[in-house]
């Protein structure tokens, strides 16, 4: 019998090697990466657990929920399965857009390797190994984040630094909680663990004031990052961190019941929403606008978690599921625009580019509308539900979240006024081919998906509810 779980973890790694070798044939390698992520994502959703899913002669492939590998336990519960499917399908969408905008990027092989590591992090027990795998994935992300012919990626450096600084706290929590299980009277162990948990996830989730990397991975000449790789980190990397946090709380429920944890989480989220909204409205660089949009989203998700209820957890999952649709579109649009002005994302350098790159501009606009949470976009679905859940008991966070969305809209409005103005004569744009029919189709499909899910969120909303029901740490 072949363990299907190993295949799920090793196949992306093997394909990463193949995709890297085939980089010369950009379209082939990009589509190979897209298909790998898509097939694995669908397989995770549809294949049955603990049953033979495929026969190869006498051997059968079986996706068992519990496997031992080199003495470490790999456990696939329903939550992990859905989480992995989310990571793979998001990556498939991102690779699909990257195929048209950055086909020669290292994002494809590095992204597949990161998927393998992040999936391993969701499955492996005890959690100390998960943290180490996430750290390795963060270090690998540098290779994808670094944009060609740009200075070293500042966002990548900050991201790796903060992830490394979060590592010790999370590793020590495991040891402290093991001792706490033996001596439950020693509340000092629980206190220290809760403080370490808060501090470590503050760093990992880019909570203010440790948010510097989030806007900087958005791209641009000064930050040296590839926007689509930045979107990968902000959606897939960030998603894995959220699932790690929930796995921590599930493994050590005492931490979630720590006094005032909920209010601390809510306040941290509110701070992110306020800072993100204020800075997004003042941005003149589109990469940073995307980063601050992601910051607002994470803030909203923290507010949802701080609600300390099943509804809050459902909204958190809904935000995780909806977030990639907007951010990936913004990143794709930004990549298309940057390719035409030497990699700069400053508004002064983007004048009139909408005529030269209409599909990139369209992707940017629709993506930013979703990030801002405008009605009929994917981002609106979870925000509207969060406004409704918050308004009776705590209207202030709901109001700030609404205002933060307006902050992103102001940033987008400013960008539009520049992009739609009369074009400048650009020397660099002459080298870049025009957006073809394929690009138009890919962008149109992505926009349709974003708007379609915004209008008909029924397929994703029950998934969020199912995920929330599988976690029991809150005791709701």
């Amino acid at each position, binding site marked *: 019998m072949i363990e299907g779980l190993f295949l799920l973890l090793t196949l992306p790694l093997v394909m990463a090697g193949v995709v890297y070798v085939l980089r010369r044939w950009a379209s082939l390698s990009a589509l190979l990466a897209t298909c790998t992520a898509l097939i694995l994502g669908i397989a995770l959703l549809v294949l049955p657990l603990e049953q033979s899913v495929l026969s190869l002669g006498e051997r059968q492939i079986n996706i068992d929920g519990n496997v031992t590998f080199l003495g470490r336990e790999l456990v696939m519960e329903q939550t992990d399965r859905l989480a992995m499917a989310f990571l793979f399908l998001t990556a498939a969408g991102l690779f699909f857009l990257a195929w048209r905008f950055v086909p020669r990027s290292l994002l494809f092989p590095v992204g597949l390797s990161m998927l393998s590591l992040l999936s391993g992090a969701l499955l492996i027990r005890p959690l100390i190994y998960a943290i180490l795998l996430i750290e390795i994935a963060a270090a690998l992300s540098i290779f994808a984040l670094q944009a060609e012919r740009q200075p070293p990626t500042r966002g990548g450096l900050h991201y790796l630094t903060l992830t*490394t600084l979060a590592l010790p706290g999370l590793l020590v929590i495991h040891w402290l909680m093991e001792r706490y299980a033996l001596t439950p009277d020693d509340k000092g162990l629980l206190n220290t663990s809760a403080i370490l948990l808060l501090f470590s996830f503050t760093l990992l989730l880019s909570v203010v004031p440790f948010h510097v990397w989030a806007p900087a991975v958005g791209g641009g000449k000064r930050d040296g990052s590839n926007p689509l790789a930045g979107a990968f980190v902000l959606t897939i990397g960030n998603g894995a961190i959220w699932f790690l946090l929930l796995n921590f709380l599930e493994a050590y429920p005492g931490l979630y019941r720590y006094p005032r944890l909920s209010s601390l989480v809510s306040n941290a989220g509110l701070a992110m929403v306020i800072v993100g909204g204020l800075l997004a409205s003042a941005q003149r660089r589109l990469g940073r606008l995307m980063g601050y949009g992601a910051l607002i989203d994470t803030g909203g998700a923290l507010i949802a978690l701080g609600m300390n209820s099943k509804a809050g957890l459902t909204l958190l999952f809904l935000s995780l599921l909806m977030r990639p649709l907007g951010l990936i579109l913004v990143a794709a649009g930004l990549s298309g625009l940057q390719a035409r002005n030497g990699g700069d994302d400053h508004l002064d350098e983007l004048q009139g580019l909408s005529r030269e790159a209409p599909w990139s501009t369209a992707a940017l606009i629709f993506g930013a509308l979703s990030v801002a949470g405008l009605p009929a976009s994917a981002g609106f679905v979870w925000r509207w539900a969060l406004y409704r859940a918050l308004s009776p008991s705590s209207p202030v966070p709901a109001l700030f979240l609404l205002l933060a969305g307006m902050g992103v809209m102001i940033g987008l409005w400013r960008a539009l006024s520049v992009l739609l103005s009369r074009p400048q004569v650009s020397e660099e744009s002459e080298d870049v081919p025009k957006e073809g029919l394929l690009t138009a189709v890919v962008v149109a499909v992505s926009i349709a998906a974003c708007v379609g899910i915004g209008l008909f969120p029924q397929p994703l909303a029950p998934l969020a509810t199912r995920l929330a029901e599988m976690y029991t740490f809150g005791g709701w």
Partner: protein
Amino acid sequence: MPTLVEILARVSFLAAMPAVLGVMVTAGLLVVSRDWRVNVLALAAQYFFVVLLLTRQIRLEVAAVKGLIGWMICTVFYLTERQASTFERSAVAEDESPAQRRRWIMSTRVASCLLAALLIAVVAYTAALRFPLPELPSDITLACYLLAGLGLLLIGLSGTPLQVGLGLLTFLSGFDLFYVALEPSLAVAGLLGAVSFIIALAMAYLRIAQLAAGGDEEEA
């Protein structure tokens, strides 16, 4: 010819305060110096002293493997910086005046870095006395605080890939020294080694990207 393990066994008499002092001096050198040759040598020596301290907590063979990973990291930095210096040499030779100006700037920077490193050393000493780490003797606790503190200082003082990489690796060495006492598992040791090595590769990649972009970002 003696093996690495035999060499480590012979110098094990240094694996107490002399090794802690060695750690302090080498980490201090990393903070103060911006010469890549000095930095690579200091990092290699730092790994040697860390391995000496590790031999008191884990099996000699495992400590030796950790040392080997550390020295491989030094090789990565050496090869990268050597390549980078070949690129940069011609540009510096064209104009001598920036180097002269730089010498004056360097001396001010060295003084402030030295002062900051001394402050961190004092803080580490106080922390080792007031907040002893569990399962660790006091001298190793001091080494952990020194490495973590000076690593953080290095990260904070500069935005260049090499310096940030050195800072991260110094910080991780300090944590590794502490964590092996709590979790002496081989898998954790291997993964922590992999983390350090990939960080070194990532920093080398960024250094090359810096050269390809045609700039040599000046440190803060």
